């Protein structure tokens, strides 16, 4: 039995330690906000935070996550009110939406480490998250909007 701490809650899971963390999160624990995209760490749809870093859960083994703090899109904020979530909503960023939990988790690391990112900083942080609908320009705009919200200490654009 392996204990996984996901979104500040402990789960006892009876799985192979080599199982991809994504399977444990989705199929065993039942948190399906994190998506399966490519399965080989190429697209970013499966991004979750492992001790605050944006790892690709499709290639991260359960054994690596044991004893660490896992955060999924469901745990990014208490009430879906992270500045990024609000900005995403205000600008209607998603089209089909499939990649956007991964996009948000990656963007959250960017804003934590660089509260005032330039377009280039955003490209450096987000180029590993692929969006087949091509919403990249709205993603960039929403990250700037969220950065302004953080800077102004409020959650309104």
């Amino acid at each position, binding site marked *: 039995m392996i204990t996984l701490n996901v979104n500040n809650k402990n789960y006892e899971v009876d799985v192979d330690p080599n199982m991809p963390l994504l399977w444990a999160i989705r199929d065993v624990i039942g948190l399906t906000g994190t998506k399966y995209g490519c399965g*080989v*760490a*190429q697209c*970013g749809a499966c*991004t979750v935070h492992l001790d605050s*870093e*944006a*790892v*690709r859960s499709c*290639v*991260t*083994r359960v054994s*690596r996550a044991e004893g660490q703090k896992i955060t999924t899109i469901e745990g990014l904020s208490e009430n879906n009110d992270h500045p990024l979530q609000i900005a995403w909503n205000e600008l209607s960023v998603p089209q089909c939406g499939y990649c956007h939990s991964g996009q948000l*988790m*990656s*963007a959250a*690391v*960017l804003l934590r*480490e*660089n509260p005032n990112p330039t377009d280039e*900083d955003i*490209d*450096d*942080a*987000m*180029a*590993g*998250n692929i969006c087949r609908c091509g919403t990249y320009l709205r993603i960039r705009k929403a990250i700037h909007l969220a950065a302004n919200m953080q800077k102004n200490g409020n959650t309104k654009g």
Partner: protein
Amino acid sequence: MKQPSEIKSPNILSVKKVLVISLMLCCIVIIASAFKQKINSPGIAIAVNIANDDSATSAQAFLQVYSVLMSPRCMNCHPAGNRPLQGDDNHIHTMNVQRGKDGKGLYALKCSNCHQAENTAGLHTPPGNPKWQLPPADMKMVFQGKSAHDLALQIMDYNRNGHKNKEQLLEHARDTLVKAGWNMGGDRTPPPLAYDDFVKAWDTWINNGGYAPPAK
């Protein structure tokens, strides 16, 4: 009774002998120090034992080392720019991955976000190692585009080799990340020398003076 000149004569001869011997010793010291300066000239910062020097053997061994360092398994993480390379064709790493200050990537694209402690099974999956990273921004240790001459000088230069002395350089060939270059998984071509032969060539190069092949 002896004349004063007869008494002084042997002393004058002795003084001349002493002067000649001193002059010869000075010449020997000057010649020896000239060799010492040559060995410690800029670019070859590691003090070596002259008795063990064999510049031809050393430089020849480095050419074998160089063939490994130029292989994609080594050079892809020692790029000329700030982006790692990928594949046997040394193409720029997809996803706009950047070196970052510490050589471990930036923001949501840090090396260990995809590269695990071990290789991930399957084709085109990320190879892994617990130490996976590029050289840091303040000591890039570039391999890409370097001639054998320039790269040998760079590696032997304490101020350009990650501040490694002779012992640390010898140890570096045994580093687990270096060794991982021979086990990257997938269809990645290994370096052209077997790992043990690489270590042997590396040791031969350094233990014989760390000489650079001639510049072309």
